[in-house]
């Protein structure tokens, strides 16, 4: 890996105006790096802005402020034809491949279209390139003459991948590529993606809310909540000991397919607020059990986490006021968080019973 990251995202903000005077901050002051051949897992719930971030990076949506440098070039300064040319180096794959295909095109046209747009090839050359791409995506040539609706879901996603890699891109935004697939199929697709990455040194931004899929492919993890990046770091470190209360709540909310074990769960309260006209401060403040007064005052500080042990890397960041006090003593911080975790629904039950007797009395 070179020192200069392949993709350098700095202070990116994207606001949508909805209705009169209502602002939806989809992406708020996000900075991230993506290195060659690396996968960044981007997770978050609805309204977190993860998909918007992916689209802004590809300039499918124009950001308000911030910079995106790709191979040292300021992407946001490009316009018209140079930008269109640049698209051969960056691609996107969607959750539902069918939605990404023009419904009137056959697989052959779908895969060859980017080649036609970016390269001047003879018929035979084009045919040859298409076959190469097919093989890379592990697809049977018989699908070429099919309509995408006629082939299996997994094959559709492979066609989408084939189209994305046709022009030899440097990075691909994968927007929940396994979201609609059964578990076994999803493992197959992730296998293809990993192989491609090894062979072609392609970098991925893997957007998903399926934490197990993210974990299977990513090198680093970035967790977003209501437009803000709350925590980013090496994947195993974050999974093992998340430092942000939201990360902890999100990871512990995943239900285990095992009736014998249960989870200490950091309990959030209330709903995910509407992302419109958010108050200043930490977006988690209204739901966070560890909330303090300063949390609603302004943007939370960026805290560098020095992980313990071998995997401790300086590239681990978290944004939280109370955490910043415990920066030097993470164990103390984990203990604080654990105090607010529970496994049983006893307390809930007690609260309900209390509400009932209070009502009757």
């Amino acid at each position, binding site marked *: 890996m070179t020192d200069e990251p392949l993709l350098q995202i700095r202070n990116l903000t994207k606001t949508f105006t909805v209705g009169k005077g209502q602002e939806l901050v989809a992406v708020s002051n996000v900075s991230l790096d993506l290195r060659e051949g690396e996968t960044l897992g981007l997770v978050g*719930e*609805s309204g977190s802005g993860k998909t918007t971030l992916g689209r802004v990076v590809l300039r499918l949506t124009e950001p308000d402020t911030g910079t995106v440098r790709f191979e040292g070039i300021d992407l946001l300064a490009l316009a018209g034809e140079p930008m269109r040319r640049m698209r051969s180096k960056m691609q996107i794959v969607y959750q539902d491949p069918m939605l990404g295909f023009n419904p009137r095109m056959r697989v052959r046209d779908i895969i060859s279209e980017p080649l036609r747009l970016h390269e001047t090839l003879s018929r035979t050359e084009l045919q040859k390139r298409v076959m190469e791409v097919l093989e890379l995506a592990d697809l049977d040539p018989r699908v070429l003459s099919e309509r995408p609706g006629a082939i299996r879901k997994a094959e559709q996603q492979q066609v989408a991948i084939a189209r994305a890699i046709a022009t030899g891109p440097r990075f691909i935004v994968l927007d929940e590529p396994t979201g609609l697939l*059964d*578990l*076994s199929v999803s*493992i197959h697709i992730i296998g293809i993606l990993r192989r491609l990455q090894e062979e072609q040194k392609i970098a991925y931004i893997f957007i998903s*809310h399926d934490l*197990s899929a993210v*974990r*299977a492919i990513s090198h680093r993890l970035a967790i977003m909540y209501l437009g803000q990046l709350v925590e980013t770091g090496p994947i195993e470190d974050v*999974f*093992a*000991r998340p430092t942000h209360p939201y990360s902890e*709540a*999100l*990871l*512990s*909310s*995943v*239900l*285990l*397919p*095992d*009736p*014998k*074990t*249960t*989870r*200490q*769960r950091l*309990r*959030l*309260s*209330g*709903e*995910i607020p*509407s992302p419109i006209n958010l108050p200043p401060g930490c977006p988690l403040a209204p739901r966070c059990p560890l909330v303090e007064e300063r949390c609603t005052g302004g943007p939370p500080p960026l805290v560098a986490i020095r992980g313990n042990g071998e995997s401790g890397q300086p590239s681990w960041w978290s944004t939280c006021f109370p955490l910043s006090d415990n920066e030097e003593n993470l164990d103390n911080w984990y203990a604080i968080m*654990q105090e607010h*975790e529970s*496994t049983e*629904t*006893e307390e*809930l*039950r007690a609260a*309900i*019973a209390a*509400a*009932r007797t209070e*009502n009757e009395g």
Partner: protein
Amino acid sequence: MVTETPDATPAGSTASGEILRVSDLTLHHLVEDRLVIDGAFMSVDSGEVLGVMGESGSGKSALLFGIIRLLLREVEQRSGRIAYRGEDLMAKSNRQMEQLRGLEMAMIVPGGKFSLNPVETAGSQIVDVLRSHFPDRSKKDLADEAIEILRIIGIPDPDIRFRAYPHELSGGMAQRILIAKAMACSPQLLLGDEFTVGLDVTIQAQVMDHFHALLRERNTSLILTTSDLGIAATYCDTIAVIRRGQIVEYAPVLDFFANPQHSYSRLLLSAAREARAQQKMDEARVDVERDTSQDRRFVHEDLPAPPDLYTLVAPGHLVRLEDE
């Protein structure tokens, strides 16, 4: 209200706490000409949570609608006996069923705001449920009770939500309103049809934890359809696996996860286990062994399943014979 029909509760039944007993339920889709449900059976005790697991199209929704007797017009019931607290539901008129629904058993439908009447407030829809069963009570009285129900369901600012229209609610909030509608008249049996699908994980955990606690507190039974092994493992007492309209395995939850017998169940579980093992999922996390000794055990010794099709592999654990 409850009348003992000797026919419906066979002598020698050990299920003293049994609230629902379904046997040989077969539903036929007239237009598609296929069996949506093929000889389904179940037994649910008071306070029990039965998880019906299956893929989309397996017929698990139809099973719930069959039990509550709200079938599509294209679907006809070929056979089946449904006994609720010993009462034969098949012998009831439509009017009687309308009375029973909501008061004795109710269904939680999925879909959030799309399952709420768009032109009326959330509160008035809960009042509608209450008024349908208590027509004599005053409007004010019913409204107060509706707000109280919202509070119990765990909805913050119930007064405000009461006046909100569905389109003003978030998905999680709308889903809680649907739960509130189903629980408004405190029915003893709830039928939940994948009602957390589409909710974000942290919201799903919040809703399910609270809802589950409420069920336990009220000793209410629940039949829950799901395709999520996590939900099944975390919240259900008993599991029924359904495939192509047939129940292929029926077992207490610990037994099921420890010892799945049918090849289809094994397939379901192995995919999840493989994923978990392969990804070394969460070894470092603070997962704890659950104290299963505190669990209530629901072991149905007398499931109304045809013995020529099912084998008993353990107490309360039935497996359908496989064709090949």
